[in-house]
């Protein structure tokens, strides 16, 4: 890069090759020259070269404000500097431009900040700049910046002889108050024996008497003493090695990045004068995601009650679980509660600590970090890079999983964040946090949760929809678990342990759960419609209803909510057998729950609040399912799915009433065919068919030729009583236990399908 950028470099190719060329090859030489010319032309058009040209030619006093050209060129230079570094020529031009203050002081600092050398820094440029230092009216802060820059790139300066020649000149700046430490450092690097002079020693001693024994002066003096011990009488502590600060050099990180990109050949020679591990300035801005270091509150403790100091044990001193147990009663919390997240031992302690203000402190810190990162930071140009956010959220999530509870600050944060979230940034983490939020009162749940989620749901991809369904399912599971842990059996009110001051009535909790289930029902109905009943989404929806149908049995919550038709029918008519099977399982569990609730009602003589409406809905669904899958009585008037008779006839579907039974259902058709195709089945069938004379021939033909079988296959034959039960067994053997349970609980076993009525739905 540096080579192509050189402005002044002679086109040596032309010169060197010209001498070797014979006359005969002149034509080729010419074409070479043309090519060279073009190369030059191209080079001249390079925007970066143009930018450099601009900076070398620009006249003094050109206004900066409103000058788009300088802005554009500046951006070009900065971009290249931060990506690849600047060539020596570019450094010369830019340094000259900056230090001459041709366009004012503000640009000067900006240029200095981006002077990142790609290879070397020409000495002449540095010397010229040093001269400008005394000529121009450069502000002190910029002067410091310049000296710092020289210190940073000191080892990359191609030669030092001229710099040493102006040693005395540089030395003069020592009397400048603010520059002194940096100038001393630079002098330290430049000093040779011949530069140690009596008057310089005297000057430094004089400074020292004024300033006290400043480390930078001592260091320089000690170096002088090494060279000329007879001149420096001062006794210098032997401990002193280098008193120079590791200044926070703004170039360090950029330099390292450029060198990394440039490869080993440059990096080897460069180890800037002062070595320090520099924190990236950009990182510093975002430090709110860094966990604070765990420290004990020694200072405060010492001030207030020194007597108790010996008794408490700071958490930071504990290293094992055994120690934690031993000192449980006298543990002192760290100065910053945020540090607890960093240690698993501390989390163990947090799990049992009941100190309200300690938790509040943690919540303040955590909430602050989340807000700054995701809500306030966007304004300040901090790009949403997930490099730090991702591990932070992961840590937060694992903490919440460990404690099995969500922090209230993350809850409050989510309610705000959901309104601005695009649904894709850190989706798994955000959904994970969302599933941890505690029960939301039904009065607020719509505004806080449902409205933003609804917007996100309907504007996002299928995968987001599935993710959200899973998240809401987890949320419901956590709420129900919480209920089953904290609810007392003999009391309808949920009284929590003593340390939680808030109670929630059972009816309040039920309302919230009801709202959530209703909401998911609405989302699922519309979502399935939008996505064309995608089986992936359907599967997540059914997951949710698997939780819902067992609320009474598994979690002791006296509440049963049926899925809406928008979920029930897509599942019933799904093209994949798994969905139908799961629906059957869910309906079976509903029935179990209803029955158990009813028997409990009788047992305890307590009014049980399962609404008639729910029972009616349940019965209706059961009738539909049984009619559909079992009885081949689709589209009966009482089924709710009423289609005009003439319309059905018009559709010309033969036997439309049977098109969703277990044989003809699109999800099971393949099994029916498979079953029909099975040797065992055929033999059975034959033995059965034999009794019916007319069909014997058919079977024989079938068993002889598969192709012919296709044509004459009569799946309806399965519906006869015996093959029907074999077919069911076959389905069960394929893993459809849901169907089995459904049939067992809803349909009398012995009855033949032909005259089977709808199963008894016992919960009525």
């Amino acid at each position: 890069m540096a080579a192509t950028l050189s402005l002044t470099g002679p086109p040596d190719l032309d010169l060197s090759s010209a001498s070797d060329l014979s006359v005969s090859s002149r034509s080729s030489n010419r074409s070479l020259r043309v090519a060279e010319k073009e190369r030059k032309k191209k080079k001249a058009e390079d925007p970066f070269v143009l930018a450099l040209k601009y900076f070398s030619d620009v006249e003094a006093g050109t206004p900066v404000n409103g000058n788009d050209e300088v802005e554009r060129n500046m951006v070009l230079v900065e971009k290249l500097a931060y990506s690849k570094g600047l060539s020596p020529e570019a450094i010369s031009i830019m340094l000259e431009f900056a230090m001459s203050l041709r366009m004012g002081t503000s640009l000067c600092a900006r240029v200095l900040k981006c002077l990142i050398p790609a290879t070397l820094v020409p000495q002449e440029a540095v010397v010229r700049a040093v001269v400008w230092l005394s000529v121009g009216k450069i502000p002190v802060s910029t002067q410091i910046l310049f000296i710092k820059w020289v210190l940073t790139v000191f080892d990359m300066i191609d030669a030092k002889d001229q710099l040493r020649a102006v040693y005395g000149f540089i030395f003069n700046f020592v009397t400048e108050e603010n520059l002194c430490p940096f100038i001393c450092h630079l002098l330290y690097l430049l000093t040779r024996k011949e530069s140690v002079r009596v008057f310089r020693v005297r000057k430094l001693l004089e400074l020292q008497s004024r300033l006290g024994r400043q480390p930078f002066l001592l260091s320089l003096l000690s170096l002088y003493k090494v060279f000329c011990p007879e001149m420096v009488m001062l006794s210098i502590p032997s401990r002193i090695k280098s008193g120079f600060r590791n200044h926070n050099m703004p170039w360090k990180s950029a330099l390292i990045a450029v060198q990394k990109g440039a490869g080993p050949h440059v990096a080897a020679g460069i180890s800037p004068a002062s070595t320090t591990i520099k924190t990236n300035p950009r990182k510093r801005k975002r430090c709110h995601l860094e966990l604070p270091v765990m420290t004990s509150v020694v200072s405060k403790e010492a001030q207030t009650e020194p007597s108790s100091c010996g008794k408490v044990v700071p958490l930071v001193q504990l290293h094992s679980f055994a120690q934690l147990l031993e000192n449980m009663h006298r543990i002192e919390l760290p100065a910053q509660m945020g540090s607890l997240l960093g240690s698993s031992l501390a989390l163990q302690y947090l799990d049992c600590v009941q100190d309200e203000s300690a938790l509040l402190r943690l919540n303040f810190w955590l909430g602050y970090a989340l807000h700054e990162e995701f809500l306030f930071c966007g304004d300040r140009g901090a790009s949403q890079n997930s490099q730090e956010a991702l591990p932070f959220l992961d840590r937060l999530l694992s903490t919440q999983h460990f404690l099995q509870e969500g922090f209230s600050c993350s809850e409050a944060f989510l309610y705000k964040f959901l309104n601005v979230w695009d649904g894709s940034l850190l989706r798994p983490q955000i959904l994970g946090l969302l599933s941890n939020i505690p029960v939301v009162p039904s009065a607020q749940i719509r505004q806080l949760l449902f409205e933003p989620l609804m917007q996100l749901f309907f504007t996002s991809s299928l995968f987001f929809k599935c993710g959200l369904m899973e998240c809401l399912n987890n949320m419901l599971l956590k709420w129900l678990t919480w209920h089953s842990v904290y609810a007392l059996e003999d009391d309808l009110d949920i009284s929590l342990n003593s340390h939680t001051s808030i109670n929630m009535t059972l009816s309040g909790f039920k309302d919230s759960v009801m709202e959530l289930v209703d909401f998911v029902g609405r989302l699922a109905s519309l979502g399935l419609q939008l996505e064309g009943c995608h089986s992936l989404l359907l599967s997540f929806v059914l997951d949710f209803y698997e939780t819902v149908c067992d609320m009474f049995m598994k979690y002791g919550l006296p509440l049963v909510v049926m899925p809406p038709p928008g979920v029930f029918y897509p599942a019933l008519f799904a093209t994949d057998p798994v969905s139908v099977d799961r629906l059957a399982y869910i309906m079976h569990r509903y029935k179990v729950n209803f029955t158990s609730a009813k028997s409990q009602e009788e047992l305890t003589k307590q009014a049980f609040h399962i609404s008639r409406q729910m029972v009616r809905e349940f019965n209706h669904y059961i009738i539909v399912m049984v009619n559909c899958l079992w009885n081949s009585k689709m589209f009966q008037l009482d089924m709710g799915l009423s289609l005009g008779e003439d319309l059905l006839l018009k559709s010309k579907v033969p036997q439309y009433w049977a098109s969703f039974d277990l044989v003809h259902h699109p999800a099971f058709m393949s099994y029916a065919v498979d079953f029909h195709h099975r040797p065992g089945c055929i033999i059975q069938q034959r033995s059965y068919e034999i009794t019916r004379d007319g069909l014997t021939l058919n079977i024989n033909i079938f068993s002889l030729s598969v192709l012919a079988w296709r044509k004459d296959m009569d799946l309806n034959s399965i519906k006869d009583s015996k093959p029907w039960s074999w077919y069911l067994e076959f389905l069960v053997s394929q893993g459809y236990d849901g169907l089995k349970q459904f049939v067992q609980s809803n349909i009398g076993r012995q009855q033949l399908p032909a005259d089977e009525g709808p199963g008894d739905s016992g919960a009525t």
Partner: protein
Amino acid sequence: MERHQNRYNSILLITLLKYYFLKETRTPRNNVVVHRRRKSKSYRLSYRSGLGAADSRLGWSPALTARRLNTSRKAAGISNIAERVDPGQLALLVKTEWQLSYVTPLHQFRHTQLKSYARQLSAFIAAGKQQGLAVEVEGLQTTFRVSFSLVQGMTQSDEDAESVLVQIHSKRLFARQDEPQKPVWSGWLTCINGNPDYLRALPKDFVCLPLFGCSGADGLSALVKSWFQQSFDCCFGLLEISHTSLQWLMALWTNCHAESGIQHLKMIWTLPAAPPLQVTYTVDPEDAWELWSSVRKGKGGGGGGEEEEEAGENYIDIEEVTSFMQGLKSHFYRHFRLDLSAGSLNQVSTALGSAKYSGRMKISNSRYMITTLTLLTECALLKMPI
């Protein structure tokens, strides 16, 4: 509205109009819109976790507070703050431009321990400044002296904690021995008319001083903040003065014109053009006052003078502020065909004070300080994570 426009057609409103291109092109046009949306949304939902029903052991459930900017506030009355507050402290508060931050409640902060805090902080700063030194050099005396002081008389309600002023003095490196130390950094923590529900809901061992202003070297600010963070387990975040708050300040200040002249009403707008356009819009104080009083009269009805006196308190409504802004914008539009509502208000200033979106604020007249600080305290409380 039509009536106003006709009236103001004749008034020369704009004394100065400057277009110039912003040097920094960092904020593309979209950004402006986006962050405004965010801002308003993040305020819109005003939820305190808990709500009397949440249940987490890890949670904390203070009373539900209305967490949005008040839509009506008391007009700035002349306060007798000059009589109550130490004039030296007041002079410091008034003459400086402050960079504002919000602070989460301080844990275990005691107003009685300010002396020891001063000692600790100066030690902390010395340690911080020492960092990076290869060896400890004896004789390097601490050049920083820290003082903590109580600003008495600032509080307005019983719930407000007393304000605290922190000052750092230092000697110049090349100063003579006898030269006195000079103040190099100052900052304060305050809470004026903080939301009483929020303050009451905090446990006893927290002190809520949500508004922090500082002026001085950034390095020192960072050190002071990190000392506070470590000592009181609190967090500092930049407090921007939102578009709405800036408009509020304009209205509140303009409202004072009759008592003490505002001299000028200056706004700086940024318009999302490419390259971004910055508009400086300066309004003659008399014209601003006239527009403002017409807006006020329109609200209160013709002879509202007596009513106001009867009510005792003089309240300003957000509608009045909005129509005031609308009047200014439409006037600008008539002259320059440029709709300022497309842009964002970045800075407002009058003789009473100035405020910038970036969170820099200066109060030039102590008489109206309380009103401004009340508004800013409210903004800071809105930023609280919980």
